[in-house]
């Protein structure tokens, strides 16, 4: 009888995050070389969306439960970063309701971002203890309700959040390298979660909840772990976003961004980390092209331009078309792996298997 000889899990799967990170680094280098301001801003935004979508993937991809609520964690993280880093003199004027220790605080940006992620994670732990008991559509609706509640609270708690208006004065910090660092961090966290015991257990529960229970898996617990980790990453993304714009207001963290990040995940393929990252890159590119078109392109005298507001419609159409031909997304739910030379990964990782049933 032949003994199955296989390399360790890490060796088999490590090529995926490495390839994704190399792609991200290449994009950053190109942006630096091009050097144009607007293009750099687009790339920073894209990296932050990589953080959001890879963070969202940690929960949605592994559990199979669609969440409409994760942008709420971004809201929590961005406001926390505002509380931690706006100079006390400004806070005394605009945010008079802040408790003393926050009103006085002016933390270093990275410490503040870590705490912002932690705050989002703690919030996720508290609400998740109840929400993770729900499954399927009920769970998705609960996440949507969570988003709405966060939005209402941050829009109306004027003395702490500035209400529906914007809070200004968040120190500018996030540039290409910081945003790249954030994106790489989240890709690594998502990869490590995916190959972890909890990641495997959750993916099993996604495919067959009953059989997972028969294998000794406590699905509610594993879902909660993924929910908290993904809330942390998205909270940090919110903080970096705050330091990118210098301004936060609650409606920046609501339906528009929820729609775009979910589209990116679905288009890329929500069952793989590669899908999450590829989805962001593809949709961001389309958005950028549309922005150019909205401004108008000079075609030897004649100017070609499209009406404003066509962005959402186009993304919607692109999503429908891609899903018609690739129901499991561009990556078909597989991971990108290195198949050449001495480092060739054998197929088969946590999620790296063809999706054989057409959404059935």
């Amino acid at each position, binding site marked *: *009888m*032949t*003994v*199955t000889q*296989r390399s*360790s*899990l890490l060796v088999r799967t490590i090529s995926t995050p490495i390839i994704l990170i190399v792609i991200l680094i290449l994009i950053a280098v190109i942006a630096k070389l091009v050097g144009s301001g607007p293009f750099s801003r687009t790339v920073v935004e894209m990296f932050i969306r990589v953080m959001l979508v890879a963070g969202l993937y940690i929960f949605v991809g592994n559990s199979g439960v669609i969440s409409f609520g994760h942008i709420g964690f971004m809201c929590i993280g961005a406001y926390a970063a505002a509380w931690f880093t706006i100079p006390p003199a400004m806070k005394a004027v605009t945010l008079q309701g802040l408790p003393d220790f926050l009103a006085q605080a002016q933390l270093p940006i990275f410490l503040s971002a870590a705490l912002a992620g932690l705050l989002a994670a703690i919030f996720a732990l508290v609400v998740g203890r109840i929400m993770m008991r729900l499954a399927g559509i009920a769970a998705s609706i609960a996440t949507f309700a969570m988003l709405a509640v966060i939005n209402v609270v941050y829009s109306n708690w004027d003395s702490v959040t500035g209400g529906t208006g914007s809070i200004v004065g968040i120190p500018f910090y996030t540039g290409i390298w910081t945003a790249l660092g954030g994106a790489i961090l989240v890709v690594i966290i998502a990869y490590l979660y995916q*190959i*972890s*015991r909890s990641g*495997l*257990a959750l*993916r*099993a529960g*996604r*495919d*067959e909840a*009953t*059989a*997972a*229970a*028969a*294998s*000794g*898996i*406590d*699905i509610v617990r594993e879902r909660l772990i993924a929910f908290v980790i993904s809330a942390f990453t998205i909270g940090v993304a919110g903080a970096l976003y705050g330091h990118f714009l210098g301004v936060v207001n609650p409606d920046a963290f609501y339906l528009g961004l929820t729609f775009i990040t979910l589209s990116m995940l679905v288009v890329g393929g929500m*069952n793989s980390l590669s899908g999450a990252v590829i989805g962001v890159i593809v949709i961001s590119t389309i958005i950028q092209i549309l922005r150019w078109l909205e401004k108008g392109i000079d075609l030897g005298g004649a100017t070609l331009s499209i009406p404003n507001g066509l962005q959402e419609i186009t993304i919607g159409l692109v999503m429908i078309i891609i899903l018609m031909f690739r129901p499991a997304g561009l990556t078909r*739910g597989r991971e990108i792996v290195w198949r050449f030379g001495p480092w060739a990964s*054998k*197929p*088969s990782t*946590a*999620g*790296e*298997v*063809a*999706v*054989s*049933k057409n959404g059935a």
Partner: protein
Amino acid sequence: MSTALSAQHVSVSFDGLKALANVVLDIPPQRVTGLIGPNGAGKTTLVNVLTGFQAPDEGQVFLDGQPIGGITSHRLRRLGIARTFQSGRLFGELPVIDNLEVTGVGLGLSRRESQARAEAMLDWIGIGALADRAAGGLPYTDERRVAIGRALMMEPKYLLLDEPAAGMSAEEADDLITLIRRIVAEMKCGVLLIEHNIGLVLNICDHIHVLDSGEIIEDGAPAAIKASEKVRHAYMGTQAEAGGVVL
């Protein structure tokens, strides 16, 4: 009380329909216990009760004399009770090896330990070559063997198999018989075998229970079951009419 996984006077009903009525059944260690009965007799429901997926309305389940009612189903696995499902229920998008590893992880093993145990298990069953295949696209027979491997990863004292031979050819069923014998002999496991293939059941079981409309109508050694007029009447009659197995 005896060493066994044991259902004592178990009753279950769904919306007034009695699925199980006062069922008493013992699964002794290192024996193959058969459970047969026509479609809808309540066989799967009994497995669900024995594995904590279904709370009985009346009666109790005992593991080696200890009542195990009220323990959540995922914790029950760790007591050494494993099962397969009538419909397979593999983790379709995971590779075969990961399907087995899930059980190791559920037991609290690290991924490295789970992988080692899963590889050893696949080799033990003789399906090591399937390790990296997606579980979703497997042929029937392989699917069943992977499901058995996944359950055996628990190193269970008791293994409950819900129609493992459904859809198998005679040859494949023979391989299954060999596998079940090895499970009993080498893994020291008590097996409950639910099966419509009567030949297979008579061949391999030490003791057989016959369930009809939720009631155990007969139990005994294979020879006694084969000879039983009651069984022939209640069970085999319907099967024969349906063009099924005749003794």
